[in-house]
């Protein structure tokens, strides 16, 4: 049962997160920050998530290609 649960979890991790968990982490943090800015500081931070996603993509690509010819 625990083996089945582990493979089920591994499948969903690979399915949604994939090769680089940092992208998903940046998305989660950016969404939390956006919600905080909107609800606690009344800042309509629509720009935060797009900027974070673009930066996360660049970071992830840099890591994937670093040291590779």
């Amino acid at each position, binding site marked *: 049962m625990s083996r089945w649960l582990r493979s089920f979890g591994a499948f969903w991790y690979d399915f949604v997160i994939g*090769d680089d968990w940092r992208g998903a982490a940046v998305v989660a943090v950016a969404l939390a920050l956006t919600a905080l800015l909107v609800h606690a500081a009344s800042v309509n931070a*629509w720009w935060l998530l797009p900027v974070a996603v673009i930066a996360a993509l660049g970071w992830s690509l840099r890591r994937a290609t670093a040291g*590779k010819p």
Partner: protein
Amino acid sequence: MNSLPLVLTVFVACAVEAVEALTIVLAAGLTREWRSTLQGMAAALVVLAAAVAVIGPALTLVPLTGLRLAVGALLAAFGLQWLRKAILRASGYKDLHDEGAIYARQVAAAQAATGGGRRGVRDWYAFTLSFKGVLLEGLEVVFIAITFGDNQGDLGVAAAAAAAAVLAVAATGIAVRAPLSRVPENTMKFAVGVMLTSFGVFWGAEGAGVSWPGNDAALLAVVPAVILVALGYVALLRRTRAAGPPPATAAVERSTV
């Protein structure tokens, strides 16, 4: 919101997944035997239908804001994964997705595998290969169709687009009886990555409480912006790669998309 972007995104994404599932089914059917392969495919379709029947209506009970936040986060993460791989492929840092080569590998593995039946299935290998292939690729179809459909409040249209894509690919596969290696899969994956990321960003931010300038029309800026950024990264990586020594082998990564 106009449902055309929904239909196009779901159709293209589902067509890509269907092409991949078709490659596996053909390898199992033509190399091993068709009856067990079709049994495996049918079993996977039953599981997928059950997933749609349970998850689809359950999601409609979730408040739209919460749904958009959760689905936006998932789509943005999922889309980033697609886009990252598409950019690495387009810039030469990762092997292009080649259905012909994948088919050859699947055929070689199917020929080497031992035979034998189990639980009323004549060829267990063909059954499991087909079942896993259709289930795994089908889960991506279900995920994309349900998330897009529920968020747009049009699950029927999303389901129809997904079904049309699967039927179109299946009909073509039956007609040519070969993997659809001439389908421009890499370009389609790039386009799907752009759309998944764009919709994920749009819905995720909305779910977090922002009001987009121009409301839904903001997508008309978000999608081209993501395209431009992605193409920019491709150009940058190509330039970096061209400046370095020629690679001994292309980088190979695990891939579910």
